[in-house]
């Protein structure tokens, strides 16, 4: 199916892309993997005259580890994210999240930058990125800036990005060894399904007690939501089932889900509790500084 009435502009580099977006203003939209935008255009949910194609820009699809910082290019595909050895080693929750998404074909097309910039409430990557304290590096005609991801989302499909501003890279400090991070998703089928609820949880444990925790809920509010009270409840607690279940209970009350075709409000609230506890359990299991026991 052809999309009538659009002009494609192949951007040579990010600066070129930004200036094209600035030139055409509201009639223009940037296209990375296109897995959301092309569908929206075909279904006439979105109308744009000018499509700025980012796919040809070199160097934006790399995953690097430099001085303890993970640098993920905005055009990195979901498939690369799912399969990357660097990500699997240092932030397995992110590759887990990517691998639960959509279908192999869509994962080959879709990008991390697109998933973050589209700001769909049920998007799978943002909760994990928030729990990992990621930073969004952007370019625009007025220059580059660094946005903490916690400040990035403002509403469903809304972000702080300017009209001619594009994501260049996402940076994450490699989590310390005494920390763990996990993403748990509930979907109605095992592939090609949106999250009914997604929960990312991170833990830092010092001297047998939780010193920091961050629980982020997806698909239960207009934006990814940090469950502040639930996270706080863990500080100072022993990382055990009881503490995690209690945090799950608190998180249930913090979510603001709606009822839709994927599940009722009540069902989602319940899932928040279960997934929060399970994410915390897995995050705890990923902590590597627990004293090693001697093998008998």
């Amino acid at each position, binding site marked *: 199916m052809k999309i009538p009435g659009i002009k494609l502009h192949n951007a040579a580099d990010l600066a070129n892309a930004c200036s094209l977006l600035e030139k055409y203003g509201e009639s223009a939209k940037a296209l990375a993997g296109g897995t959301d935008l092309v569908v929206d255009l075909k279904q006439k949910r979105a109308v744009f005259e000018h499509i700025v194609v980012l796919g040809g820009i070199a160097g934006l699809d790399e995953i690097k580890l430099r001085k303890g910082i993970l640098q993920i290019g905005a055009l990195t595909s979901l498939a690369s994210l799912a399969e990357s050895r660097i990500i699997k080693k240092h932030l397995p929750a992110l590759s887990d999240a990517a691998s639960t998404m959509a279908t192999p074909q869509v994962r080959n097309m879709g990008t991390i930058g697109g998933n973050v910039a589209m700001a769909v409430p049920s998007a799978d990557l943002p909760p994990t990125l928030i729990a990992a304290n990621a930073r969004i590096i952007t370019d625009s005609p007025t220059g580059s800036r660094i946005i903490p991801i916690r400040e990035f989302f403002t509403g469903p499909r809304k972000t702080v990005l300017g009209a001619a501003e594009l994501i260049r890279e996402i940076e994450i400090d490699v989590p310390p060894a005494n920390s763990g991070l996990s993403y748990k998703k509930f979907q*109605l*089928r095992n592939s*090609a399904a949106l999250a009914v609820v997604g929960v990312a949880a991170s833990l830092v444990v010092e001297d047998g007690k939780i010193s920091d925790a961050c629980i982020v809920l997806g698909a239960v509010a207009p934006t990814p939501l940090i469950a502040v009270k639930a996270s706080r409840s863990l500080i100072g607690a022993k990382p055990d089932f009881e503490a995690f279940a209690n945090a799950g209970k608190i998180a249930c009350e913090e979510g603001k889900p709606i009822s839709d075709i994927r599940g009722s409000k009540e*069902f989602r609230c319940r899932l928040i509790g*279960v*997934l929060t506890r399970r994410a915390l359990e897995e995050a705890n299991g990923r902590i590597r500084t627990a004293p090693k026991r001697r093998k008998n």
Partner: protein
Amino acid sequence: MSEKFLRDEKYKNNINTRVDHHFGDIEKGFKEADYTREETFIGNHVYQAPMEPHASIANIEGDGTILLYSSTQVPHYLHYQLARVFERPLGTIRVVRPHVGGGFGGKAEAAPTDYISICLAMKTGKPVMVQYSRKDMFEHFRGRHKQYITYKIGVKKDGRITAVKSTIYLDGGAYSSFGVISAYYAGSMLATLYKIPNYKYDGYRLYTNKPACGAMRGHGCPQPRFAFESLLTMIAEDLGIDPIKIREINAMDPNTRTVNDLDIRSCELKATLTAVRKKSEWNRKYGKLKPGHGIGIGCGGFVSGAGYPIYRSKFPHSNAIIRITEDGHAAIVEIAAAEIGQGSETVLAQMAAEGLGIPLERIRMKSWDSDISPIDLGAYSSRITLMGGNAVSRAGRDVVEKILPYAAKELEISAEDLVAENGVIRHKSDKKKFMAWSEAARMYFSENGPLVGTGSYSPPEGLGGTYKGAPVGTSPAYSFGASVCEVSVDLETGKVSIEKFTDYHDCGTPINPMAVHGQVEGAIVMGAGETIMEDTVFDDHGRIVNPNLHEYLVMTSKDVPEIFSGLVDSYEPEGPFGAKEVGEGATLPVLGAIAHAIANATGVWVKELPITPEKILKALDEKRKKDEKTSKPKCGCD
């Protein structure tokens, strides 16, 4: 809903079909019962969701002939309908059916794409193509009726069924489509699986402000079968009878006339139950699995072709012509049987080859063009293997009859002692006396001109009873099957993983076992999807909320269980080479088997399809509340 809404004066209270069937005497039957149980079940609006959208291309040819290419399962009914609507002779219309990308009943009638493309071609004088979008497909629908089903079953202590009472309301949408037949099928097919001495069925098909429902794989039967199998298992468990055992006790026997006058010939339901019990290791697993793990049984079966056509006609249901090329090498098999992905071309070619006595690779099928191939009624009611197969094998034998005298003369052997097999014609017992099949065919051509054989098939005359609606459910033969399903259920989220299916089917003697297993695997995946995730959701105005494959959930390859498909020995005398159907029948055991496995894993029955995680959690909550109430010590008791 407003009183005026969609009210059709012809149909009081919007009831478009009322079925009132009573066989035997249910009052007497329930009196004889030692135990009865009644339950209500609710089905779902399942859509066929074939990969290929409906599409039609029309052109008005130079001589005025209408040429229509259509993605149809039923080229003849389409052809007939076009002749009626455009008020012109059938012979002035040519229908071509290209390879069709799936139908499952959704392309079993003339679609608006057919009429519109023809009308526009007439107006413009140019070829016109009309194709549905995915959304159009959902809105055209013709998927399953949502059925509201109440069954009451009475049994003796040992599990023998004494009476069944069935009340079903079918939500049919705004038009009839196949709905009248669906309403009858929902009742009639219940009686083929088990011996039911007394049976009452009250069916109501209702007009509603939704898209029209129609025929879909298992036509009208999967939801009642889900309900009946569930209730039968509940009763078995109430009485402490093994759920497979209660089926063995009641299983249909071969050569039986059912209470509603359907004639069963071959029937190996008991054999499928024995086989499935052993292969699934039922005795080791049932009742012994950990919480959250469950095993369940379901049975099913279907017609091998409807006994009567959709419209009154006397001609044979399947018709074939085989023309042998002049060199005697190839056989061109002409039969307008619709290949829609089910593999009918393959099995028909196999059966034609067998009838002719030449290798399969010498067969060329011509099935898509009404100008070339004679009528076959189409790919519905699981009819092509049995009916089309009989027609092509008879046409093959007709050819052989014509060439045997030439071989007899050449070999100096009586024609009665000759047999055509694998490209040669030889003496029945002396394999050294033979000649090439093609040589005999050439001799015939030299003397007579074209070598052509014909064959056709009509179901046996007088099938079924004489009551109103008796033709629905009649068939030359019936399939039977039993499935065991194993699931695990996440008791905290309600998520079901269907882990394993073990299925045995009685499809008579299979023509192509690989194709049979393919049908069984497809039926299990499709049936599992409609049991646990598929539903067309409507808003308050009757508009579809999820007319796309993103929100209408069909199973993906990551949801598919491990499947074992097995066959039991069977021979159907009415079928070609002993064969019966598998395409629709294999769907029927699936729903009940999964429902039981989930109940077995969770301790709760969900009686409304689809059995979603949310419904499972709700049922678990209700059970917990009930258990808490009953476990409270009562003052003054005991």
